[in-house]
C-alpha cells in the first residue's frame, strides 16, 4: 500500500509539475541555504584554522605597534633574551626578521620571502627539517651565509630528484650555501606561506639584508602547566619596564594569544552558524506553510476523486495515507533538489571566496530528513481533512 501510495504521489506531482516546483520552492531554498551555509561555514572554519596554524605552534606573538607619536620601537635580541630568562614558565622566546628577495640557482629565479630566524624559532613554530641539518651555533652567532629552503623554493629552483643540500645559490646579491630543506607545511590559502620562504640565521638577515639589529616580532612558547594570563601579565610588565613606559602610557607593543584568537574565531563562526540556522528555519517554516496551503488546494480540487475512492471502499486512513505520502514525497523531493542546489552553490561559493570545499554528509542527511518531516507536519491536516470527507458530498462536488 505504501509503495503504491508513493507511486500515486509521484504521478500526482508529475501531473502538476510547475505547481509542485513552485510549492516546494520554500523547502528547496531552505534546504539549499542550510546546506550551503553549513558547507561554506565549514570551509571558512577550516581556512581560518589553517590560517591560525600558520601563526605557528607558539603561544604568544609579540610585535611593536605605532605609538600616538607615530614612532615604532622595534624589539631586539636583548629583549628576547630578557623574556626568556626572566619570565618563569617561558620555554622558548625567539625573534624573526623578514625580507623579500629573488633567489637564483642554475639559471632559474624565484621571488620569495627571506626569513631571519634561529633554530629556536623553528622549534617554537614546529617547523621541522626534512633533509639536511639545522643551523649550527657558530652559524647563528657569526651570521654565516647558510640557508634552509621551503619546499616551494626547492621545487622552483632545483630539478626534481636532485638534493639542494650543499648547493651554493644566490639570494639577491648575497651568496649562500643550502644546508637543508624544511618539511612541507602545506598551508596554502591566505597568510604567510612557510613553504615559500628561504630561512637564514637571524643575524645574517639583520646584517646582510636589513643593516640593523631590529626584530619584526618575536614568538614565545611556554610550559603548559603555567597560567597563560600570568605569563602574559609578567611579559607585559617586563616589556613596559624595558621600554621605560610610564604608568599611564599605553603599550607600544601588542601581544597576540593564539589560543584566544582561536576561541574568538570559533565563537564568531558559531554565532554565524546559529544565525543561518534561524534564517533557514524561517524559510523552512514558510515553505511548510506553502506545502500545507497547496495540499489543501489539492484536496479541494480532488474532492470528487476522494469521493470515488471512498465510494469504492477506501478506508479513511488509506485516503489520509495517500495525501500524507504525497506531501512527504513532495517535501522529500524538494529536499533532494535543495541538497543538489546547495552542493552546487557551496562548491561555487567556496571557490569564489577561496576556502576549501568541505562536504558534510551529516548536514545533507539531516536536511533531507527534516524536509521529509516537514511533509508529515504540514501534510497531516490536509490529509486528515481529505479522509473525513463525506463520500456523497464529495461525489457531488463540482
Amino acid at each position, binding site marked *: 500500500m505504501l509503495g503504491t501510495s508513493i507511486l500515486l504521489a509521484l504521478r500526482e506531482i508529475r501531473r502538476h509539475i510547475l505547481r509542485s516546483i513552485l510549492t516546494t520552492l520554500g523547502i528547496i531554498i531552505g534546504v539549499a541555504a542550510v546546506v550551503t551555509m553549513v558547507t561554506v561555514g565549514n570551509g571558512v572554519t577550516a581556512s581560518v584554522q589553517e590560517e591560525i596554524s600558520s601563526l605557528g605552534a607558539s603561544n604568544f606573538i609579540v610585535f611593536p605597534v605605532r605609538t600616538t607619536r607615530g614612532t615604532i620601537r622595534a624589539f631586539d635580541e636583548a629583549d628576547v633574551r630578557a623574556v626568556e630568562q626572566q619570565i618563569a614558565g617561558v620555554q622558548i622566546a625567539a625573534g624573526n626578521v623578514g625580507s623579500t628577495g629573488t633567489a637564483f640557482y642554475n639559471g632559474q629565479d624565484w621571488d620569495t620571502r627571506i626569513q631571519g630566524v634561529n633554530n629556536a624559532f623553528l622549534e617554537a613554530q614546529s617547523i621541522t627539517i626534512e633533509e639536511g641539518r639545522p643551523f649550527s651555533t657558530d652559524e647563528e652567532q657569526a651570521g654565516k651565509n647558510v640557508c634552509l629552503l621551503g619546499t616551494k623554493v626547492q621545487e622552483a629552483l632545483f630539478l626534481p630528484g636532485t638534493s639542494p643540500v650543499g648547493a651554493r645559490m644566490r639570494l639577491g646579491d648575497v651568496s649562500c650555501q643550502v644546508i637543508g630543506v624544511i618539511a612541507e607545511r602545506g598551508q596554502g590559502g591566505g597568510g604567510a606561506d612557510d613553504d615559500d620562504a628561504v630561512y637564514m640565521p637571524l643575524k645574517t638577515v639583520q646584517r646582510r639584508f636589513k643593516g640593523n639589529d631590529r626584530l619584526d616580532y618575536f614568538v614565545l612558547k611556554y610550559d603548559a602547566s603555567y597560567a597563560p594570563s600570568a605569563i602574559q601579565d609578567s611579559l607585559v610588565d617586563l616589556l613596559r619596564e624595558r621600554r621605560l613606559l610610564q604608568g599611564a602610557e599605553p603599550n607600544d607593543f601588542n601581544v597576540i594569544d593564539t589560543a584566544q584568537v582561536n576561541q574568538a574565531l570559533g565563537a564568531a563562526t558559531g554565532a554565524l552558524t546559529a544565525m543561518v540556522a534561524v534564517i533557514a528555519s524561517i524559510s523552512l517554516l514558510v515553505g511548510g506553510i506553502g506545502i500545507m496551503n497547496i495540499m489543501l488546494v489539492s484536496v479541494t480540487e480532488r474532492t470528487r476523486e476522494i469521493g*470515488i475512492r471512498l*465510494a*469504492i471502499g477506501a478506508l479513511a486512513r488509506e485516503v489520509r495515507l495517500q495525501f500524507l505520502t504525497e506531501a512527504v514525497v513532495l517535501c522529500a523531493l524538494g529536499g533532494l533538489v535543495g541538497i543538489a542546489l546547495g552542493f552546487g552553490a557551496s562548491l561555487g561559493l567556496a571557490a569564489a571566496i577561496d576556502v576549501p570545499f568541505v562536504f558534510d554528509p551529516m548536514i545533507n542527511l539531516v536536511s533531507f530528513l527534516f524536509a521529509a518531516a516537514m511533509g508529515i507536519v504540514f501534510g497531516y491536516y490536509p490529509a486528515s481533512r481529505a479522509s473525513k470527507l463525506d463520500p456523497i458530498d464529495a461525489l457531488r462536488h463540482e
Partner: protein
Amino acid sequence: MTGEPLIQLKGITKTFGTGPAAFQALKGVDLAIDRGEFVAIMGPSGSGKSTTMNILGCLDVPTGGVFRFRGVEVQKLDRDQRSLLRRRYLGFVFQGFNLLARTTALENVELPLLYRGESKGQRREAAMRALDQVGLVPWADHTPAELSGGQQQRVAIARALVTQPDVLLADEPTGNLDSERSVEIMELLTRLNGEGITVLMVTHEEEMAAFARTIVRFRDGLVERIDRGARAATESAV
C-alpha cells in the same frame, strides 16, 4: 444462505437537518431485494429515491429503521466498516461516470483492487477481464478524455465489476448519454444481470426502467408502488 433476501429495508427513515429546518426525506421505507434481481428505482425529484440509493450503497446511514445486507445490520456499522462492505460486495456506476482524469481506462478499472492489497499482476489481469466484459480491451490505454461518453460509462461499469461484487448500484447511469448509447449501456447491464449480478438502478426514464425486472416507484419519501415483471412486458412488446 438462508431464505432471507439479499437486501432488506424495514421502516427506513431519513431526516436531514434538525429543528424547524429538518426535512424528512424518507418516511418509513420497506423494501426487499433478492439476489439476482434487476431493480429500477423511479420517482420524481425529492421523492427519496437518491437517498434510498445512498443508503443501499452503504454511503449513508438511515436515521431510523433497519437495513440488512447479507444479514448484517448496516445502520450499526461505522464509516470504515461500511467502506469494507462497499469494497467487497458493492460496485458503483454514477451518472457523471466519475473516472479519474488523465488516468488510463485500465488504471481506472484497477483502482478498487488497490484497496484490496492485490499484486500488480493480479490487478492487471482482473482489470483486463473486466474491460473484456464491457468490450473495451482495445481502449485500455486511453484516458477518459479520449473516450466517448458511452465508452466512459462502460469503463465505469468495468471498474464496478472488477471486484466481482454482489450488487451493482447504478445512479442514473444513462443520464449523460444519448438514447442510442443509453440502450447500449442498458443492454450491458441486462447481460451482466443475466450472468448473476444483482443490479439496482435509479432512473427517471421509463424506457430505461423498462429493462429492469422490477420497478420501485417512490413518492414523498415512501414506496408508492412496485411493478414486477416489467422486462417481460417490454420483451413481449418487442
